[in-house]
């Protein structure tokens, strides 16, 4: 409506300007009437006509022409003051004026229209280019839908624009199978929204048609003969050319939406494949980790049960001890698996308490239950090391996993060294703890990967879970964990844990 008012006001202004110009021309010419030739006023009265045509179009020009004709006839062709014309030559002048004026008005109007048309086409081309530019970009579907409705809103200026997509509903359900996926503009009321979705559902045969309340335009987006959505414009003023533009626009949008949907589908498929592969690796790792202790338990038990073997008492005791240790190892693996599910489900809660390092080491040695004798472990820490502010259950598990790895990789009984030093700032104190062994070490390219869930260092020699869990627990404390690249021999795993402010470990 506003646009319409604007047009009228513009036309009225143009007419007023043309008439004013005519009046001015009359006022200027009238005093010199007796000195002028018959043709001069006719030429001057052309000027307002051209002004009218240029500013207000053909009809403003025509009105100015009629006024000019009347002024010319009444005031400048004798007898003055009447429409009557006496001399034949004056008749001729009047007719020539009228013809010239009309032809000029016509030509200028046509030029004008052609220029407007050219400008409009240029704008259309520009908009379509902008749109296609936006549509070929690698953007996600929701971004794309927003882009489409915003462009439609800017170009066609309806009250609002909405884009409806088929909703994923359970098969056989009767409800409207369209939902509003994106909208732009103002005043999309709840009622209108329901009227949209309720009347939706049939976008198959819908071409560009008016549906529902007047001045609502709905365009089906069809790609590959398959409806992909419905574009609805509320209260829009359409020129004939605009329809074609909207149609082109809708086709482009349909292709883009279809492409984006396919792209999303491809991404989802790839994600599922990734998950499948990961699950496969997980099953393999878990199966391997559980089977390893099980293999030695079974071998030992079957030896003990076998008749006719010459097991002495020492052998029996050794086998029984082995069974016990391996059962503990199995239990730890199961604990690790449960921990892992806790991490995965996000149910990991850190409950920090203050604890000295010695106690943490004792706790983790107890957790690995005899796998690492206390005398094999050397602790190298300064006497003023602050207390650790840690969840002792989680951090005990971290240290236990590191000790277990160290013990398994150097079975010769070589020492395992636990080092600690204070780092960080007085306000955010941290303690750096390291566990170093003299085992085979980890290759440089493996140092990052060993912390991944279910990674297997060197064909399954290392637990696929221990380091991944250590990393998760350390990070839950706000610390970090890494493999020291600077050691010449063996492996040195370093991690940081928060420490208590201003509380030394030994008072």
């Amino acid at each position: 409506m506003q646009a319409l008012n604007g047009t009228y006001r513009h036309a009225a202004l143009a007419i007023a300007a043309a008439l004013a110009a005519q009046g001015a021309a009359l006022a200027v010419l009238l005093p010199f009437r007796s000195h002028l030739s018959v043709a001069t006023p006719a030429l001057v009265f052309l000027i307002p006509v051209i002004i009218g045509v240029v500013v207000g179009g053909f009809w403003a020009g025509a009105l100015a022409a009629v006024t000019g004709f009347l002024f010319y006839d009444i005031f400048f062709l004798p007898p003055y003051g009447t429409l009557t014309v006496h001399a034949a030559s004056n008749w001729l002048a009047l007719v020539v004026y009228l013809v010239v004026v009309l032809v000029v008005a016509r030509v200028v109007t046509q030029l004008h229209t052609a220029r407007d048309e050219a400008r409009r086409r240029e704008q259309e081309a520009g908009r379509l280019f902008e749109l296609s530019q936006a549509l070929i970009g690698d953007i996600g579907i929701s971004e794309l839908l927003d882009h489409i409705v915003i462009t439609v809103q800017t170009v066609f200026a309806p009250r609002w624009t909405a884009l409806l997509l088929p909703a994923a509903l359970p098969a056989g359900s009767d409800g409207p199978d369209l939902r509003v996926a994106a909208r732009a503009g103002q005043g999309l009321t709840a009622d209108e929204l329901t009227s949209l979705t309720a009347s939706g559902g049939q976008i198959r045969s819908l071409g560009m048609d008016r549906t529902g309340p007047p001045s609502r335009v709905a365009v089906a987006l069809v790609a590959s003969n398959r409806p992909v959505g419905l574009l609805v414009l509320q209260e829009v003023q359409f020129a004939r050319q605009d329809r074609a533009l909207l149609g082109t626009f809708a086709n482009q949008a349909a292709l883009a939406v279809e492409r984006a949907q396919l792209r999303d589908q491809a991404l989802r498929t790839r994600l599922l494949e990734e998950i499948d592969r990961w699950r496969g690796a997980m099953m393999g790792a878990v199966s391997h980790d559980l089977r390893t202790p099980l293999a030695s338990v079974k071998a030992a038990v079957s030896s003990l049960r076998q008749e006719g073997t010459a097991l002495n008492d020492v052998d029996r005791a050794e086998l029984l001890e082995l069974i016990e240790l391996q059962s503990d190892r199995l239990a730890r693996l199961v604990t690790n698996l449960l921990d892992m599910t806790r991490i995965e489900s996000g149910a990991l809660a850190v409950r920090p308490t203050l604890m000295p390092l010695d106690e943490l080491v004792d706790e983790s040695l107890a957790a690995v239950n005899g796998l690492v004798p206390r005398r094999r472990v050397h602790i190298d820490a300064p006497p003023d090391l602050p207390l650790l502010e840690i969840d002792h259950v989680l951090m005990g598990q971290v240290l236990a996993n590191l000790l277990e790895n160290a013990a398994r990789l150097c079975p010769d009984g070589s020492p395992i060294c636990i080092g600690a030093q204070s780092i960080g700032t007085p306000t955010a104190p941290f303690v750096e703890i390291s566990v170093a062994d003299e085992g085979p070490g980890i290759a440089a390219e493996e140092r990052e990967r060993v912390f991944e869930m279910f990674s297997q260092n060197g064909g399954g020699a290392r637990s696929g879970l221990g380091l991944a869990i250590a990393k998760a627990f350390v990070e839950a404390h706000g610390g970090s964990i890494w493999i020291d690249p600077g050691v010449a021999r063996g492996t040195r795993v370093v991690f940081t844990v928060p420490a208590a402010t201003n509380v030394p470990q030994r008072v």
Partner: protein
Amino acid sequence: MTKVLVVDDDVALVKALRIGLTARGDEVATAQSGVEGINQVALFHPDLVILDLGLPDLDGLEVCRRIREFSDVPVIVLSAYGDERRKVEALDGGADDFITKPFGMAELEARLRVAVRHSAARTGNGTDLSGTMTIGDLEIDLVHHMATRGGTVLTLTSREFDLLAYLARYAGKVCTHHMILKDVWGPGYGAESNYVRVYTHRLRKKLNDDEGRLLRTVPGIGYQLVADAPAD
């Protein structure tokens, strides 16, 4: 007394096997890495190697190949459940048999016995100067293309005889479908495992071995010719 070398990086399993096998009367050496295992084969001259496929330094398959470069010692591979592809690769790469973790000592010992017995037959007088192989009560005359079982002459087609002779040559070793096709049918074959199934089926009929006790099926992997274990 059998000299057994156990190559595995899992300390506990090595220990259990060492005690179990020693009690049975074997002499046991152990190695915890692939390189150490290869060296031990050269130094210790074992009668049999038990080899884990997952070692910290070298891949078990690689270890197996390197051992085969200088030794015919039977190799029994320890593998995880479901790792069929690796099993086949190991067997193709020269391993004699495999056993899936976890396993009982009785099963392991049975496998050891088969491998050692047939290995001895292969390296010793299995093929004597007259070109005859003996597997239990089965006799194969390579010169005259003739086979008898328990003294009864078997009527075999040429392909059936080739297949039997091939399995007999590798008696005790698990031969994969791929190996059998490549060596008996020819280098152009390798994927047509149904051929092997058809011929082993016919062979069993003629050997009077419908239960597959002599010509054992190793599901999903291949076949193994085993003389019935002597009662012990």
